[in-house]
């Protein structure tokens, strides 16, 4: 009923190949974009910008990066955070060492550096797969973070290996206020998400999916494995690198290499598992689940404390939050092992038939 497509005819190939072929989807996405671009800047508080929306968007971008590699090309990676670290440290060095470097160019170049390193660590994927590949990316995680901490040049010989992001200035405008930073992140993330969505529907994306589903069969139908896998590693690392640079420049400010530890890699992996493996929408949903749900739970507990005056100590409520979060993860994985994106897809199918299931 709500999703009835009756009467929506496609009369051209362009219309048939559109990202959102159904009108309701187009309206939905337009509403979300209007909300994000036009409504949020006027209604949200600095707290929502800096603590909720900005990290959510940045981690969504990292999740898209991992989803390209793991979800679309089928190469499991545990080194996402390390590629983010490369992006952050590369941006820092471009800004520090190249006079007059525009920040956006620095972000793009740092994504490029990250892509190069990603391809190097992607080389083993040509010979090994599955869990063994995951172990080599795990090595990348430790090796890269160790390297950034060990070699003083990367952090400009800071005694503790910590870098401090320079000011973000574009065409003389300083991005200092929370809403300007949010909007900058939003523009970058939406452009890159659009690019990713189109990429996975392109020839490249289809060859990745063929490799994911069965690489021998893909080879038989004429897909060259090496370019397919290496482009996936490169593009995935590019996304992670840009996300890492944004994480340092527009979110944290001053970072130590340890901020990009294995824990962050796992969190991004959980995002795509919960959100939906092989889905751009899933990257956003998963990021929302992992970053926003704990905050929401803690706000609920804080609200209960002030209104109902819970007779519990802080230590107990903190543990309760953690347990509730764990229980919700298990609940969603049992209800839908293919992630929240799949749940949304099922809901869409149901809405299409509603109120007459058959």
């Amino acid at each position: 009923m709500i999703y009835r497509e009756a009467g929506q005819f496609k009369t051209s190939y362009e219309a048939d190949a559109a990202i959102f072929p159904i009108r309701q989807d187009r309206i939905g996405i337009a509403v979300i974009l209007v909300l994000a671009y036009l409504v949020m800047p006027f209604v949200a508080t600095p707290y929502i910008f800096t603590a909720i929306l900005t990290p959510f968007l940045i981690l969504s971008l990292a999740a898209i990066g991992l989803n390209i590699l793991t979800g679309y090309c089928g190469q499991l990676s545990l080194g996402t955070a390390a590629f983010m670290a490369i992006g952050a440290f590369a941006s820092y060095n471009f800004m520090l060492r190249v006079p007059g470097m525009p920040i956006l160019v620095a972000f793009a170049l740092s994504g490029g550096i990250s892509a190069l390193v990603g391809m190097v660590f992607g080389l083993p994927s040509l010979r090994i797969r599955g869990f063994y590949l995951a172990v080599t990316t795990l090595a990348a995680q430790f090796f890269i973070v160790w390297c950034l901490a060990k070699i003083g040049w990367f952090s400009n010989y800071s005694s503790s290996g910590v870098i401090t992001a320079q000011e973000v200035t574009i065409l003389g405008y300083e991005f200092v206020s929370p809403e300007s930073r949010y909007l900058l992140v939003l523009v970058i993330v939406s452009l890159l998400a659009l690019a990713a969505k189109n990429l996975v529907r392109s020839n490249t994306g289809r060859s990745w999916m063929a490799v994911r589903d069965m690489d021998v069969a893909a080879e038989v139908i004429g897909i060259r494995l090496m370019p397919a896998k290496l482009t996936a590693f490169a593009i995935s690392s590019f996304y992670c690198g840009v996300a890492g640079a944004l994480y340092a420049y527009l979110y944290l400010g001053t970072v130590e290499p340890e901020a990009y530890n294995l824990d962050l890699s796992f969190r991004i992996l959980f995002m795509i598992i919960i959100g939906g493996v092989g889905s751009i929408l899933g990257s956003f949903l998963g990021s929302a689940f992992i970053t926003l749900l704990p905050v929401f739970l803690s706000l609920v507990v804080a609200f209960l404390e002030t209104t109902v005056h819970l007779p519990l100590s802080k230590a107990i409520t903190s543990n309760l939050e953690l347990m509730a979060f764990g229980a919700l993860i298990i609940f969603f994985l049992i209800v839908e092992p293919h992630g929240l994106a799949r749940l949304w897809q099922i809901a869409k199918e149901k809405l299409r038939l509603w109120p007459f299931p058959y």
Partner: protein
Amino acid sequence: MKTMKSALLGLTMLGVAATATAQGEQFIPLLSYRVGPYAAGGSGYFGGAIDYFNLINATGGVNGVKIIYEECETEYNTSRGVECYERLKTKHGGASTIDPLSTGIAYALLDRVAQDGIPMTTFGYGRADSADGRVFKWVFPVGTTYWSQAAAMIAYLGQKVGGVDKLKGKKIVHLYHDSAFGKEPIPVLEALAAKHGFELIKIAVAHPGNTQESQWLQIRQARPDYVILWGWGVMNPTALKAAAKIGFPRDKVIGVWWAGSEEDVIPAGDAAKGYITAAFSAPGTGFPVMQDIKNKLYASGKGNLDDPSRLGSIYHTRGVSYGVIIVEAIRKAQEKFGKGKVMTPEQVRWGLENLNLTEARIKELGVGGMFPPIKTSCLDHEGSGMVRFQQWDGNGFKALTPFMSGDKEMVRKMVDAGAAKYAAEKKITPRDCAKEG
């Protein structure tokens, strides 16, 4: 339009000021952590701070101004910490000061606190060069920094061998947690090694450090005179057990203060006996304030620690010391800006910058000997740099030395250089301290 706007703004500000003074409450947000691997430290430290704030409130507040606090669970996770900071900073009329007890969160807040105008204390952790108040106007590593501590350790080892000049030709191993925390003291140790002529051997332990056989094999081969243990969490008891295994005398292992709590030594059992650590606050329940906390709070079930036997433990007294210093900063600010008033963050910052806790004043507060005298200034946000050494005898920590400091002059030079570099990178113009009141 403009006049109306400013009039409105004035009205709202008046309203805020009125409610703030009507309540007479000073808000301190606490970015605590009570779950996860570092919960022991977090619950002890923040428990101590809360106990002291409650004690102050029970005895009438700071010249009548009550202290209110709100906790937010960070799980020692940087992004959770940032979220908590953003959530709490504007509550209850605005945060007065903040202390995240996590190096990662402290780094992430470095720019934010300067922008928001909220003073941040990093009590015994964080960036050593933030002691330079000219560049780091809003950051206060009150008490001691890692650099001062490293210098004090070498000074102590000098005492042990009968003078720092006798350190020449000795071998000292720096066994460290491979992170910003463990690497922070290396420049100071290297400079001191060059100055005094001892050999410094640096051995890294990867996080979390629960296997150290190869590192201790290296130590056994090197046959050092002393081992500095710059560890964190599970790495510490593991190191002590490994030292016992190869027969390295434990009284030649000198731990950093984060390796010197009951939680670090008790899991090592007998292997920890004789182990020496640095500390910037003394444990124990003998202090009058601790007695007050015990009798006025814990006796009536209002104490914050779930396990009252932890009363007076290292982390708990460290939290109490933090509470005392913050309350004294507020008191100092009130002396200048009006007694019995709620202080703005800027005024609290002034208080932190003009702290003068003499030996006599500390004793008067009922915490005599818990921490060294502290006198901060615009130039020096550290204010003390003194450390004491203590030894674990299997039941408790016994003091070995009074509060002492190392080569302060050299450390200060390095602080100036580090801060100047930071200022150049961030394009900060250092304040002129001669003009500060």
